């Protein structure tokens, strides 16, 4: 019983410390607005979410992924990436071939 409790604590500590998000935004551009009922930092923002697993071949690198949602000539206003314990585990057990990508972003108006 004591072993299981210790294992549970360790699991929780690792999970919680490896699960976080970081948000970047440009300071001098207007975000794309939306009328939603959100009650978080994105209240009033039009938020897109990308939640996927990307696969990398062994022989290639320098990947990038295109974001098609923003209007002509408009870039990103905000990007938030999130790491999770599951995502880190997936990356580790596949030796970096599979990466869990979880981002939120807002375009410039």
């Amino acid at each position, binding site marked *: 019983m004591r072993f299981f409790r210790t294992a549970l604590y360790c699991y929780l500590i690792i999970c919680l410390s490896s699960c976080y998000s970081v948000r970047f935004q440009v*300071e*001098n*551009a*207007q975000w794309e*607005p939306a*009328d939603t*009922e*959100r*009650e*978080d*930092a*994105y*209240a*009033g923002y039009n938020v897109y979410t990308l939640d996927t697993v990307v696969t990398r071949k062994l022989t290639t690198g320098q990947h990038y992924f295109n974001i098609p949602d923003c209007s*002509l000539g408009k870039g990103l206003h905000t990007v938030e990436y999130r790491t999770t314990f599951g995502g880190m585990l997936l990356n580790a057990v596949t030796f970096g071939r599979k990466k869990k990508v979880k981002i939120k972003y807002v375009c410039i*108006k």
Partner: protein
Amino acid sequence: MATTKIDERTRWDTLHKNGPFPLKRFLTTKLEKTSTGLNDFARYNDAATEVQRLIQRAADTHERFRAIGSKWSMSSIAHCEDRMHFNSFMNLKFSIFEGEMHENTAYEHSNLFWLQCGNQIKEISIFLEQRGKSLKTSGASNGQTIAGCISTGVHGSGIAIGSVQDYVVGLNLITGPRPEDILYIERKSKPALRDTYAQNFKAIVIRDDEIFNAALVGLGSMGFIHGVVIEAENLYLLHRYVKKIPKAEALQLADSLDFNNYDPKIPNADFNGVHPFHYKVFMNPYNTNEDMYAVEFIYKIKYYENYKSDFGNPIPFQKEFVYLDLIYLFIKIAEKIPKAIPKLINALKTSILPKEEKTTVGKLSEIFWDAGFQGRAFACSFGVDHTQSSKALELLAALTRKHPVPGIFAMRFIKSTEATLGFSKFPFTCMVEIDGIQWDDDENIISLKEYSKKMIEVLKDNNIPFTLHWGKNANWEFPNLTEHMYGTERVKKWKKVRNRLLSVPMQEVFSNDFLDTVKLSEPLPLDDDLIV
């Protein structure tokens, strides 16, 4: 063609969650794409045609129609149960050239800009800065649309400037579905643009001070504001410093606004005798022993390119907010134990109040930058003559100590407006406001409705003339409120102009529950119209 997406909905809420309110349809109009090759005048006129189609549809179905921008108002002024029109994507901007100016104008053409309704303050500032210009003032943040700002009277603390509507020099209204319902209005006493320029927007020109002043703060009910012409000015910098000064000194400055012989004693700067661009007093109503008040002095200084190397970036690299969950926990405690509110406010004051003794220098758009969502907010804001500001503050603070609510007070000061129903109607209006986090009605704590009613009563009982910020919380059902604030003649003047601009059926289309509540939706009887 501009396109409108119509969403069937059951409810709608403000940004600060002061509702929810019932709603049938939510309309979002987007401009014709630039890839079609249309120029901006054509895209603007195309949007006007689309708005007229939507107005016609509302009239045909005997429904009300209301334009909204960023829904920052906390009162229900932006709400309408039938059709709400989100116009933030209608954001074209036009510079004005010399040949487009009225022959008798006193304005400098390079300072004038025609802005479509959905332009938000931040994007306008960016557009202007690319041309070496700046807005004259803004609210405390930058998310509102220009049409929303002027409809409700958004203000900062521009002692010499006034509110946002006070630098608007022309209005483009759509008052109905017919071609002759597209109007361009400016003051006869201060003409700005040639008729031929307004005709680019297919607008009929009206030059009339009374009509312009009434339509300026139109409460969303003088038709659809499609565009505004603003007067900007050359870029400038603001020097901001927050410090604590003796309470008596802070209040004496508020009551007198006399800075002629006042030295704010700001390190590395000499503003002795200089009138500040902005003066704000913060006040925690629960700290009765406080003999020092935090005050914010902002002075206007000449713009120069390298100010960031002297003062650093006014926008912090890392912006921090108190956890919303912590705020909501605070409110739950407050609802159950209102006596704990003073202690909770004092515990959070370092997070609520601005950092002291720190100089910040930046452009207007940098000083009044993005405001993060801080939870379900409320705000009650009263306009009083600045000479009565300390008295009004003391009365409202005493009321708040008697009926504690989770908020703190501030006072800001605005020059008088010419708008007929502008709440900054005094020569210098002091806006005494309490901002805080909403609470749920509970038997232990006073309701917001009751609290705001008592605020009105205490000012009335003490013979302090007042106005209320149209976009903030108040007991709007209070009997005879609008006439008490503005007087019968002003209310009649406003209604008379509404009669002139809008047919009776269109007055119904452009009304809402808020307007009904404040007794402004009813058309002025024809006899009264002739008398005023």
